């Protein structure tokens, strides 16, 4: 508990303020005691003075009232006077004499005469038990009488003592109050610090998946707030059944190494081993009393007391939190409670981290599974094409009369067969392309090409379709386009796809291709006079298996993969594609493409 070595500035600041408050209380107490002493002396003087005045009054009374009775030797009056002054309980003896002859004398029972006669001290509080007062009384020419009274100091003393007791009691009360107040404030300060630490930790725990950082924060706060010197959070390794020190505070590397190598587990008689079996906090108040502690290096490092809290959640053991102190002694209940709170936070952190690890693992597995799926699709579609190739090949040979003349009726059916076969082949190719892109297998073949030629190739390929639908096919391509670099075949595929769609969905009007070239970027657009695409559909048509309108899929055919492949090819070139459309007015698909593509972009 000493502040002799303070590991952090925070703790130093606190101990300084504590020292200051101790000094403050000390000085305050001294001032109070001084005030009390002055008060007591003042009271004594006051009481003594009062006594003196009272006795002086008695003497004065005697001098004015006794001369006549003394002269006449009127004993009754003299006795009456003595009786009267004896009403004052502190007067214990009175004597009236005339010419050394005692006329009347009265002594309160319980007092020895010689005692009364010999006590001559001047002040009650310098040890005198009694005060003696005497006065001469002149009753005639040369006639002198004497009155002598003795007053017991007991009651005055009692009175003074009572006052002293009162003052002391008051001082004690005040000091106690100050101490209590200070202790309470200190406690409040402590609990405010605890609250702050807990808030900080729970914020960190819930926001941070870096378990090391979270736990090192917890162990540091645990050590500082429990005013101990070192701490360790262990994670329980279920496979090895040992406690692995995860984060430490206030110990050196050699100590941590020793902890790690000791490989202690649940069954071992360590403080954490015991705490786990107990399922509750466990203390060792003094290691000196545990000669065969399983981890001897703990004592060697100078630690005397230890407190361990198991990290448990729903009967599952996550690990343990241990704090160590160089000073022997029990840990208080509040400290145990505090550490239990920290333990709960540690469990949350460890649990979060484990969940996070699991999710990451699952993510990786999913990614692998997805790659497998894509690979499977790539393989499968490749395999599907081989027999289809044969079907299409034979069909074409039969149509071309290679195997003899074919009756017109059969030829017509064969042509339908061929058309459907080609459609099927297109679908398979789309699936293949997409799965290859997803499996990361689509590699662009980057070479020099001419955009003008690519457009011309695409136009040639779709010309027949446009003629069949009586659509006008227009192109506007500048003559002086720079020599470009990219995957010519894939770019042609993009253009073919966009042109194919435009022709497919447009029933009258025209389809137009335009190319512009600025800032090292081609801008290519394919515009049609078709039905247009609603705004909602514009957002999803580039997604896989989506077409603008479900009904058009059945009517116009298509896999819904074309545009997503197109988008990926454009993006792999570092370009962008989008659609501009008004329902009823037609659509423009536009994509940009860097003129020189030097590397493939894989997201």
């Amino acid at each position, binding site marked *: 508990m000493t502040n002799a070595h303070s590991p952090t500035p925070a703790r130093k600041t606190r101990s300084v303020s504590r020292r200051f408050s101790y000094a403050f209380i000390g000085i305050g107490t001294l001032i109070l005691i001084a005030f009390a002493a002055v008060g007591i002396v003042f009271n004594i003087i006051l009481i003594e003075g009062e006594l003196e005045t009272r006795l002086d009054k008695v003497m004065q009374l005697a001098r004015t009232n006794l001369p006549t009775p003394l002269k006449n030797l009127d004993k009754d009056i003299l006795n009456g006077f003595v009786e009267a002054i004896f009403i004052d309980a502190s007067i214990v003896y009175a004597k009236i004499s005339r010419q050394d002859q005692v006329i009347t004398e009265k002594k309160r029972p319980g007092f020895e005469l010689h005692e009364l006669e010999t006590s001559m001290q001047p002040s009650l509080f310098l040890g005198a038990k009694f005060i003696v007062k005497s006065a001469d009384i002149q009753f005639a020419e040369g006639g002198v009488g004497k009155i002598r009274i003795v007053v017991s100091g007991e009651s005055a003393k009692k009175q003074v003592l009572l006052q002293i007791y009162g003052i002391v009691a008051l001082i004690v009360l005040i000091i106690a109050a100050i101490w209590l107040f200070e202790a309470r404030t200190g406690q409040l300060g402590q609990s405010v610090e605890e609250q702050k630490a807990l808030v900080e930790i729970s914020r960190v725990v819930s926001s941070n998946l870096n378990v090391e950082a979270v736990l090192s924060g917890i162990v540091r706060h645990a050590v500082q707030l429990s005013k101990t010197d070192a701490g360790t959070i262990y994670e329980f390794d279920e496979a090895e059944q040992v406690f692995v020190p995860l984060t430490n505070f206030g110990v050196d590397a050699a100590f941590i190494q020793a902890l790690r190598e000791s490989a202690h587990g649940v069954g071992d008689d360590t403080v954490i081993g015991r705490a786990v079996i107990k399922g509750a906090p466990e203390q060792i108040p003094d290691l000196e009393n545990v000669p065969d502690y399983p981890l001897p290096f703990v004592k060697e490092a100078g630690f005397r007391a230890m407190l361990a809290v198991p990290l448990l959640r729903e009967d599952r053991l996550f690990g343990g939190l241990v704090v160590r102190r160089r000073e022997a002694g029990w840990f208080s209940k509040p400290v145990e409670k505090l550490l239990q709170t920290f333990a709960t936070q540690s469990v949350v952190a460890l649990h979060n981290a484990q969940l996070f690890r699991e999710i990451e693992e699952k993510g990786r597995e999913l990614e692998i599974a997805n790659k497998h799926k894509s690979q499977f699709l790539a393989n499968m579609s490749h395999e599907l094409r081989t027999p*289809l190739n044969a079907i299409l090949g*034979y069909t074409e040979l039969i149509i071309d009369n290679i195997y003899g003349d074919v009756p017109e009726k059969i030829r017509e059916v064969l042509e339908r067969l061929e058309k459907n076969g080609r459609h099927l082949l297109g679908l398979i190719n789309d699936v293949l392309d997409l799965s290859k892109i997803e499996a990361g297998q689509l590699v662009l073949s980057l070479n020099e090409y001419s955009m003008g030629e690519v457009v011309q190739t695409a136009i040639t390929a779709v010309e027949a379709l446009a003629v069949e639908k009586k659509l006008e096919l227009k192109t506007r391509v500048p003559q002086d386009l720079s020599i470009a670099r990219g995957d010519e075949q894939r770019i042609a595929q993009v253009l073919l796809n966009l042109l194919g769609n435009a022709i497919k969905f447009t029933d009258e009007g025209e389809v137009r291709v335009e190319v512009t070239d600025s800032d090292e970027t081609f801008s290519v657009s394919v515009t049609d006079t078709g039905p247009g695409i609603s705004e909602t559909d514009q957002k999803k048509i580039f997604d896989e298996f989506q077409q603008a309108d479900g009904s058009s899929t059945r009517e116009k055919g298509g896999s819904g993969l074309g545009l997503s492949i197109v988008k990926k090819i454009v993006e792999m070139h570092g370009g962008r594609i989008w659609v501009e459309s008004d329902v009823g007015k037609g659509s423009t698909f536009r994509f940009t493409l860097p003129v020189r593509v030097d590397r493939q972009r894989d997201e």
Partner: protein
Amino acid sequence: MMKTKILVIEDNEDNRRIVRDLLTNAGYEVIEAVTGQEGVTAAETQGPELILMDIQLPDFDGYEATRRIKANPTLSAIPIIAVTSYALSGDDVKAFEAGCNAYVTKPFSPRELLAKIREYLQ
């Protein structure tokens, strides 16, 4: 008049038959080989005027077969048309690098194949 000899190196029986039926009908003599090694041997012994080379072959691939044939000075002038798979990107480049004169992608249309062959036999 001697018919023009075309060597078809192809492991798939249907593909072989389609090419055979197509080319025989077009008036060519067709020599068939199923493996790369058979193909190279046939090229050396039969003296074809054109070779159709499938790329995926059971022993060594069509690129290797092409390299071996082109490495032989007496055969290097024979045009070789590679039949590359659409599935494998970059096949065209590899085919040219190996020494092929042209390529068609699989699946091919017999009509287009015939046009390509005629182009190289002129």
